[in-house]
């Protein structure tokens, strides 16, 4: 008969975005038992590209070919920036491990190297990023060499227009052609949705029909670009089948949310968590979080689990994200941290939250608001000292960064999680020892 379930673990990770997933992954890889609370839906907004650092400083909009040089610049110019507080070696290994885990779950990335890569977006702009899925890398090469190339889109997929991309690039890629085809089996539908196409292409028969439709359109093309719909759980197989069937390199172009690459990411990461024995509470939220006197262990009261659950953890990692992740909550008076009400570094007045121009080069003040942390990634209380001995914060909830403008979202999440978990492990080892 009922009674609130009890559970215990070394690390409780709150949040299941890129940062939460990275933190949980790194924790279990270090042999720490882990319970993770939170909806991974935020990953659906991801493009599948793993930024590290593309722009620095934001105000100048200066792009960097090497993320590590950019990081060095960042360390010089903004020593308080969270990314500037993680050393390059850690960042390298963090990315390696993260990408390796994704690969293990069937979502393969091209080997990372030292340089940023350039990727074509669905509105014809060019994005500077770092980690590129295997299914998109042919696009990076094509963009560099500009060979005769064909962009294919599907009637009804409203977010993606090949003609728009080709036109926008215009004469800077003369060999870029565009064709529109009917998606096999969906001829009667007005609207198509990326995820449905992706799953449909996992069926061999549909896939074959699609390839057969594109083949005669190839012409001179030495590469073919598609919207990112080439398979969901089986993306590698589908992509390989298209390259084999068309006989030229095939690449995907990321689309608007909810994007297939985003679904792939959440799928792969959820699978990783299950496989590594992370206990996931997907729809659960933390109703109460309390630490015992010495701050040794934390007690989390979860709701959104039938019957509820009480978790006692030796350390807690806050990876709840910003406003859309609801780690930060803003009302007319100001910005709050949603679970513990930790002090949030923020502009003095709401008038200073946003610039009058959406694209103001210097970015919006609110985006640099967030939690301040000490060198061990522990959020600071009002008194400027760590709020709790074993409470850590990672990812975009951290203050003094503007990941959207710096193009460092994934980097921030992965790097800070790595660094924080390193601290957690050290702390727990110490506690066990002494």
């Amino acid at each position, binding site marked *: 008969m009922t009674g609130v379930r009890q559970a215990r673990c070394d690390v409780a990770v709150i949040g299941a975005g890129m940062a939460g997933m990275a933190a949980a992954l790194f924790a279990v890889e270090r042999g720490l038992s882990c319970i993770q609370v939170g909806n991974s839906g935020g990953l659906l907004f991801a493009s599948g590209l793993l930024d590290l650092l593309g722009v620095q400083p934001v105000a100048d909009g*200066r792009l960097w070919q090497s993320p590590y040089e950019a990081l060095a610049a960042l360390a010089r110019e903004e020593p308080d920036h969270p990314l500037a507080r993680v050393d390059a070696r850690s960042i390298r290994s963090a990315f390696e491990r993260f990408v390796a885990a994704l690969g293990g779950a069937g979502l393969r990335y091209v080997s990372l190297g030292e340089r940023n890569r350039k990727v074509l977006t669905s*509105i*014809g702009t060019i994005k500077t990023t770092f980690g590129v899925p295997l299914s998109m890398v042919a696009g990076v090469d094509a963009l560099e060499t500009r060979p005769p190339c064909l962009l294919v889109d599907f009637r009804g997929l409203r977010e993606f227009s090949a003609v728009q991309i080709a036109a926008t690039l215009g004469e800077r890629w003369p060999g870029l052609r565009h064709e529109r085809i009917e998606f096999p089996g969906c001829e009667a539908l007005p*609207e198509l949705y990326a995820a449905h196409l992706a799953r449909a292409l996992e069926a061999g028969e549909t896939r074959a029909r699609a390839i057969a439709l594109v083949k005669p359109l190839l012409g001179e093309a030495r590469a073919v670009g598609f919207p990112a719909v080439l398979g969901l759980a089986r993306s590698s197989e589908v992509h390989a089948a298209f390259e084999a069937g068309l006989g030229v390199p095939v690449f995907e172009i990321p689309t608007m949310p909810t994007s297939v690459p985003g679904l792939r990411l959440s799928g792969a990461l959820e699978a990783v968590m299950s496989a590594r024995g992370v206990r996931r509470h997907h729809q659960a939220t933390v109703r109460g979080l309390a630490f015992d006197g010495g701050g040794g262990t934390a007690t989390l009261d979860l709701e959104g689990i039938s019957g509820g659950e009480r978790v006692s953890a030796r350390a807690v990692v806050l990876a709840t994200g*910003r406003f*859309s992740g609801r780690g930060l909550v803003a009302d007319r008076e100001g910005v709050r941290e949603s679970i513990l009400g930790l002090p949030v570094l923020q502009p003095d007045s709401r008038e200073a939250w946003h610039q009058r121009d*959406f694209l103001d080069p210097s970015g919006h003040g609110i985006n640099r608001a967030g939690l301040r942390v000490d060198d061990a990634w522990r959020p600071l209380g009002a008194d400027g000292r760590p709020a709790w001995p074993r409470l850590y914060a990672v990812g975009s909830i951290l203050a003094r960064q503007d990941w959207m403008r710096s193009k460092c979202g994934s980097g921030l999440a992965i790097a800070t999680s790595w660094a924080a978990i390193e601290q957690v492990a050290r702390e727990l080892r110490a506690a066990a020892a002494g």
Partner: protein
Amino acid sequence: MNSPSNTATQVLIIGGGATGTALARDLALRGVDCILVEQDDINAGASGRNHGLLHSGARYVAGDRQVAMECRAEGAILKRVAAQTIQDTGGYFVAVQGDDERYIADFPALCARAGIAARAVDVAAARALEPALSERTIAVFEVPDASIDPFRFSLETMAHARSLGARLMRRTRVVGFELEGRRIRAVRLQSLSGGEDLRIEAAQIVNAAGAWARELALLAGAPIEMTYSKGTLLVTHTRLAERALTRLRLPADADILMPGGTVSIVGTTSTPVDALDDVQPTTAEADLIVAEAARMLPALATMRYIRAFAGVRPLVGAAGVADGRAISRGYALLDHEDQGLDNFATITGGKLTTCRLMAERAADLVCRRLGVTRPCLTATTPLPVAAECAWTEPGRSPRVWMRSHARDDTLLCECELVPGRAVDAIYDALRAAGDTPTLTEIGLRSRIGKGACQGAFCAPRTVAHLYQRGDFHAGRGLAEILDFFGERWRGQRAVLWGEQLAQAELMEALHCGLFGEELRGDDLRAQASRDAGTPGAPDDAPTNEVSS
């Protein structure tokens, strides 16, 4: 400057707001040839930045019975001749604890004296019909207020005028007047859309530029006394009421909530301003509106707001009066003859509700001067429905789309369910009138970008659609998106907290984080103002890229 091309007309109307367009239609109906020039777009000023409330007049019974009675009469006329643009919601005047008991007591008599039907409603009954009303409500009166779609109204008015021969020149600014004794011989105009400059010779010139009337009159050498009052309004995420709800007290801040089809519009504020450029709602105004309006409608305190906008009321003949509300909401028609001009007139002030009357009076003056004797027909001639203008109506496009849609007629906007065919109709209509339609102009004529996402998703879809149609070329789409966002953003930043802030964050994550639009913003905007034919947009190796 190169010699501009010449045009001639009987009457030149300056300003494409509610009054200007109404005047164009009035004159056209009397068979008078006229041109309307507008520096921006239809209803770009205060005419498009108000509650969309068709006043019964009850709001002014205490302050200005003259205006109250005008509103009553004009409201009745518009319900008759422009029914398609009006939703006869009816209105409640609502007093809550703490409101002036004496005013409440006098209200029925004041309404009666102005000939306005006001019926006392039992508070419980009223709250049953309008559950959002505060439980601290103490008195409710029902009055014949209604909701009007200002955009559809002015667009259809102008469309009718054009069908009768009137000409419209948008994005054309007056840069000078050529005086000749007591007459203005010609008006010099500059095209803001890259077209050639113009010189128009007109027998009569009417200054219907709303808030801009002062600058214009000054330019013509006939200064007028006018102050500006800025009014800010907020748009809610969901529709909160079925009726126009007005606080039962002397007009003050944030005391009207208007059901605007699928949303509610709450406001306004009234703050004096001196300059007209870049009038934007502020966070302080938003706070004031929420705090004050929540006393009548508590739900407003926790409501998600998707937008704020501000308009400027031109207030004539009261320089130096502190509170804009103390000044009459009546209109002013100035013939400028005492300033030595015989063919120039200014019509300004007033209200959306009385714009037809204002146009009639202005037209009467002009016709007298022209010696035209034909009477005004606008009070009796029904306003014809213009298909391409109907898309501004909230909640209409879902029905149209659900009734039937071709396989290729997909929804471009999910928030408000706007189908491709709406964009097609608007685009083609503008094209037919010789314009180069922009995304912003399409937005003004439809619900595109007016929903929760404020354009984040529908703008790229619409642009893709227009590329697909072959209407957009080269880098134009991106430029259009950025302009559109620029316009949308002005209305957003004041209400960005809670859920809408999360929405905005998602928008920036997409358009900056992924698309990197901010990195290309400047040269695109520059290029947007160039001919849309030339290729441009993002280059692969930005000059400012650091390479090792």
